[in-house]
């Protein structure tokens, strides 16, 4: 039941944000924000109930993993919206959360294949949460990057079309993107560390060279380079935005693509 409510609210929020994009009326944006918040509450409630009932965090298969991913996106968006007040970000955040959730619902609920001990450790919990929050933040950074590119093109090419009026300043987009990258990178780092620690705990080795681990490190490196260039080389604006977009592409592959195209122990969590 919570499922349906969550989807309906995320859907309503996405619609409201689309209306805001096209008609720029404040009340659409306010409605979108409110509906999204309510959807998040419903979502959180649903997850809590499931966790309490089963005693474990719901990340046994693709269905549940996507659900958590959607939840992380929602949480990060709400925080960013509150902090940065860039209203237009709802236009990609709401549909993203909705999409992840809908896909999650369409995927069958398969029983777990690992012993429960695997799922119930604190490190496991920490690893999953930090990875997903990191990915949500980097998804927002990617979104901010896309908006930055759109706005920069409008200003540079002097074609102030549909987006020009609706987007905030380049500076605001760049700042928000940067914050997302820092937060996301930090979370990702913690995620990798907890992952290695956890692996040592149950499989007695820090790293198994599982494809997901390899690609995670590759993703991590991309963002590390981005941050380095920004802090030391003063790379900001357009190049930073492009790297944020590319980095997220690699991250998406790491999260889902790897599991579909390659084998490894992470495959258990994205079975469908």
């Amino acid at each position, binding site marked *: 039941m919570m499922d349906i409510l969550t989807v309906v609210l995320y859907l309503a929020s996405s619609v409201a944000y689309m209306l805001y994009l096209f008609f720029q009326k404040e009340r659409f944006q306010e409605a979108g924000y409110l509906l999204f918040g309510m959807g998040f509450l419903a979502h959180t409630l649903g997850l809590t109930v499931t966790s309490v009932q089963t005693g474990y965090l719901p990340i046994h298969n693709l269905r549940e993993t996507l659900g958590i991913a959607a939840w992380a996106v929602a949480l990060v968006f709400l925080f960013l919206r509150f902090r940065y007040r860039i209203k237009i970000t709802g236009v990609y955040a709401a549909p993203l959360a909705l999409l992840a959730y809908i896909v999650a619902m369409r995927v069958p609920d398969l029983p777990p294949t690992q012993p429960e001990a695997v799922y119930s450790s604190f490190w496991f919990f920490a690893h999953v949460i930090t990875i997903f929050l990191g990915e949500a933040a980097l998804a927002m950074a990617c979104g901010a990057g896309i908006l930055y590119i759109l*706005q920069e093109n409008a*200003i*540079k090419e*002097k074609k*102030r079309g549909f987006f*020009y009026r609706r987007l*905030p*300043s*380049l*500076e*605001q987009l760049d700042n928000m993107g940067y914050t997302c990258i820092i937060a996301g990178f930090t979370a990702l780092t913690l995620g990798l560390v907890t992952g290695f620690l956890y692996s040592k705990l149950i499989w007695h080795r820090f790293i198994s060279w599982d494809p997901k681990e390899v690609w995670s490190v590759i993703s991590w490196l991309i963002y590390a380079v981005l941050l380095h260039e*920004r802090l030391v*080389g*003063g*790379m*900001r*604006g*357009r*190049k*930073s935005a492009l790297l944020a977009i590319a980095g997220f592409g690699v991250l998406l592959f790491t999260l889902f693509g790897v599991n579909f195209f390659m084998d490894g122990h992470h495959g258990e969590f994205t079975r469908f």
Partner: protein
Amino acid sequence: MSAWDERYGVMREIVLTGLNHKTAPVETRERLAFSASEAKEALGALRARPEIDEVMLLSSCNRVEVLMAARDCDAAVAASKSVVADFKGLPVADFESCLYTHHDNAAVRHMFRVAASLDSMVVGEPQILGQVKGAYYLAASEKASGPLLNRLMHRTFHVAKRVRSETGIGDSAVSISYAAIELARKIFGSLEGRKILLVGAGEMAELAVEHLIQHQAGDIFVANRTLERGVELARRFNGSAIALEELPEALKEVDIIISSTGSPTYVITRDMVKQVVKSRKGRSIFFIDIAVPRDIDPAINRLSNAYVYDIDDLKEVIDGNIESRNVEAVKAERIVEEGVVAFARWLEGLQTVPTIKAMRSKVGSIAECEVEKTLASLTGLSDEERAAIRRMGQAIVTKVVHDPIRFIKDGCHNRDESRALSYARSIFNLDE
């Protein structure tokens, strides 16, 4: 206080006459424009005319208008024309063909539209409201305005404010300097603390710098071929003057550059900017090139995080904004109409009290006349009896007019004063 003229038993009406940039060429407008002190004197002359009861004079580079309240509007208009003609030493025939005259609701509508900047050369311009306010305050302080114009002008400011806040009519830039600021804000977000460099001089460039200062811009640097001019401008903006040779170095620090020199070649080249990109650490830099021939190498626009807008680019921004202003203007016209209707209703309400008074007075005087006539022909009545008969007369008057008064007041409550009033005035034949 009332616009009802007690002496003559008629309402004053509103009339407006004048010319603007649409009806008169600039030479005529120039000849008829009034400076602040001239306006004061002219108001006195207009006020002194017996045909004119209340008057306000509005004079700007694009219009000269006289707003009046009078009992006989045509006479007032003629009087105002002759006062202006005398004052300016210009025969009426020279400007009469350029004049428009609006009565009652049309005059109210015109005033609202003018103040809301709907009649301006650039719809949505912000200066006109200040000019209208100035004209009104002058009229008020010279006691040239009265209850009707006072009310009209207060409503005018209210309508203008509504238009500004409820429509986007003034939102987007339609002047070069405002367009530049708008772009700067799309790049930098807040302009607070941003460093500005002015290269050269010129009205538009200096205006842009002033706007930037209003937005809390940071340090201002001025570079000019002539050091004295540079120093003078720097002093005006509370900034510092630099020599043209120091310009490349200055590019490391400043965020917004406004250039307006007479140089036939580029004052700022691509190489100059390329060299400072690294030390700027990727911070955005915005060049506003108002000069023709251009001062700033357009190739700079292709560099990372650098933006160059020349005067044609800025004009394009303005054209786009004018389009959207016209859309907003439609909303504004609706707000103006609402104001006109509300004002007309207020005006009608003014007639209520005098009508009731006139009705009571007429019936009362009929009764009094008959009572006294009858008493005069009756002899042998005691004083008490006479008093009783007089009281009877008054009681009859009060009871007779009670229902008509109720009818008029109900008309007011149902917002239908004019019908109720006109019936009452007809039935009692008050307007003979």
